[in-house]
């Protein structure tokens, strides 16, 4: 039985992070960079498209310099609203600018085993089980490939991962692990099989594709070619910058936004030039380099500011946004994870980022933890409640109840209380027990989250994929395997 999805919808709180003038300055600087510095597009297909549309193309360096108006005109062709379809239509996700849909994070390489507690290399069975838990949770609206199926052959790994998600969840699948044209073609074929043909897929994209840029100011050739395959099929495709202050971007936040923006909008413009009207989205997870190790930090005040600022940019271009939040740098579910994941999620949600990535990974998106996954969902539910804001209609002002109780007394036996108490947020993993109960048991959030994940895995049966479709997915993967061997 498929579960209801409960996204953040129509937040009543708001935040002013960039003024219209600020955005204009960032946009102008971005166009200047694209036109005078250029962006590297190491794909012959991409270079041909750029050349045909009046860009200056250097075939040697594969750097493209594009007049600003070409980029602006191309971006205007991108649809502002579309729907990410699910196998179960009641789980469809309209990208309408009023919802924040949460996904799982990706793509980890290790898993803290749910039953032994040992850290080990990730495999296909983990993709299966994470998809099943994600299918159950109402906070999770769509899946990323949470961990890499490292026991599958590298050439078709991304396809096995995708099939595992579709076989274990009816929710939308977004993959970030397809980086070649060949795999993209097979993935589209799989998605078309599920949607009921190529035209049906265009109307109901049960798959979307996420590609990473190569900061600063570059792209990966395979990612570009894979993105073009998706755009041709009408499958939503996004490009994500992970520009990092002081290493792959300037040390200043505005400079980082300019570099990342140049990467993302140049790639999206390319998609629109090739296939006008193709559904695309902006994706970002900028950060600051750790000044001591050079590492991608995945948490910190800069990240939180980027989380809120980027949606202002994607709104300016009238394109949906997939924003990196959560993804703590902490090594285990702890204080750091709680602080980082709460603040990043609050900042990205209050500005209504359409897609939010994602729950469950530790150590900068490397280690999967079911405990972290469940606790991240709790963070999301807190933010969800906060963004509902405060209602001040007559019923909410509660004058009748106040009159009935008067000075002294209490509100516990009021009908008004019974009507509204379930609107109060209920914790699952926060410890609100009496001190002596805690003292006796010495357990807490991690234990309860682990127990909950174990229960879900033991009891939740996702709606099964039609066996004929499952067989068809296997056939497509086998065919792809034969091509590569």
């Amino acid at each position, binding site marked *: 039985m498929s579960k209801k999805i409960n996204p953040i919808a129509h937040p009543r709180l708001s935040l002013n992070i960039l003024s219209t003038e600020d955005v204009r300055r960032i946009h102008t600087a971005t166009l200047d960079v694209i036109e005078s510095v250029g962006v590297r597009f190491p794909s012959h297909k991409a270079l041909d498209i750029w050349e045909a549309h009046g860009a200056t193309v250097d075939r040697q360096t594969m750097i493209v310099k594009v007049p600003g108006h070409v980029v602006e005109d191309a971006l205007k062709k991108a649809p502002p609203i579309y729907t990410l379809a699910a196998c179960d239509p009641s789980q469809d996700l309209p990208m309408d600018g009023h919802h924040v849909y949460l996904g799982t994070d990706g793509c980890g390489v290790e898993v803290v085993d749910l039953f032994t507690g040992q850290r080990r290399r990730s495999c296909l069975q983990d993709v299966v089980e994470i998809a099943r838990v994600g299918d159950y949770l109402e906070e999770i609206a769509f899946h990323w490939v949470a961990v890499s199926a490292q026991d599958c052959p590298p050439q078709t790994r991304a396809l096995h991962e995708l099939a595992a998600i579709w076989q274990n969840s009816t929710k939308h699948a977004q993959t970030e692990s397809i980086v070649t044209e060949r795999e993209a073609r097979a993935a589209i074929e799989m998605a078309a099989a599920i949607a009921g043909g190529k035209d049906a897929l265009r109307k109901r994209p049960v798959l979307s594709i996420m590609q990473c840029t190569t900061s600063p100011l570059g792209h990966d050739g395979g990612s570009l070619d894979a993105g073009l395959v998706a755009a041709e099929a009408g499958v939503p495709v996004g490009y994500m910058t992970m520009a990092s202050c002081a290493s792959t971007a300037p040390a200043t936040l505005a400079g980082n936004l300019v570099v990342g923006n140049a990467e993302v909008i140049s790639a999206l413009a390319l998609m629109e030039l090739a296939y006008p009207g193709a559904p695309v989205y902006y994706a970002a997870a900028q950060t600051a380099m750790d000044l*001591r190790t050079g590492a991608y930090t995945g948490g910190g005040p800069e990240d939180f500011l980027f989380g809120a600022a980027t949606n202002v940019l994607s709104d300016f271009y009238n394109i949906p946004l997939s924003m990196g939040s959560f993804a703590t740098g902490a090594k285990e579910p702890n204080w750091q994870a709680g602080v980082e994941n709460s603040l990043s999620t609050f900042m990205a949600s209050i500005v209504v980022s359409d897609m939010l990535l994602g729950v469950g990974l530790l150590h900068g998106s490397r280690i999967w933890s079911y405990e972290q996954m469940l606790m991240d969902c709790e963070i999301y539910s807190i933010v969800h409640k906060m963004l509902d804001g405060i209602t001040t209609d007559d019923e909410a002002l509660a004058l009748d109840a106040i009159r009935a109780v008067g000075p002294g007394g209490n509100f516990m036996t009021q009908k008004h209380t019974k009507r509204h108490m379930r609107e109060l947020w209920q914790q699952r993993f926060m410890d609100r027990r009496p001190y002596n109960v805690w003292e006796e048991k010495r357990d807490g959030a991690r234990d309860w989250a682990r127990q909950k994940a174990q229960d879900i895995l033991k009891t939740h049966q996702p709606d099964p994929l039609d066996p004929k479709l499952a067989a068809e997915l296997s056939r497509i993967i086998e065919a792809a395997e034969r091509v590569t061997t």
Partner: protein
Amino acid sequence: MTDELFNAMRQAIVDGDAEQAEALARQSLEQNIDPLAAINQGYVQGIDYVGEQFGAGEMFLPDLMLAAEAMQKALAVLEPEMARRGTQRQVLGKVVIGTVKGDIHEIGKNLVATMLSAGGFQVYDLGVDVPYATFAEKAREVGADIVGVSALLTTTMTGQRSVIEALDEMGLRPRVKVLVGGAPVTRGWATEIGADGYSEDAMGAVALAKKLVGGYHV
């Protein structure tokens, strides 16, 4: 007079001022100062200071990178004169480094290469998307002590094993040590493929390289 020049060289490195480091190198040649003395009593003093400050948390990675770049500029000026005099700078070892085939991520690899170079190693950087056999061929050609293989993708990470196999086939193992790195790489993976070392960051990689060439306790 010479002491003043050496001090200025040291300071140019500490400031990360490549132009100044280069200009001072030229000046030392004009004054017929032994390039080895300029390196060891001037520039290396600066590198050592920056390293100490980094260790104390007073300076940051960009400071190290700027210092290393300034050092490289100075060395480029001094090297022809060293060759003419038939002297050479003592290096701790030779390292061949690159990002493995199918992978174009270079920042982490460049960081490690620069830090190794500043740390006293002769570094041969093969760039990105490097075929497995090329690592082994270059290692044989230059008589490398260490081969460093970087990978940022789970799909290209398997190429690190292939590089080790290529080194095996050429009979270079276990003499040539292998260091692996990159975001998806773990200690477990390094052990499984028979690599000699793994580090998550550049400073750790330098420490490991020093340990592998022997005699250095870190």
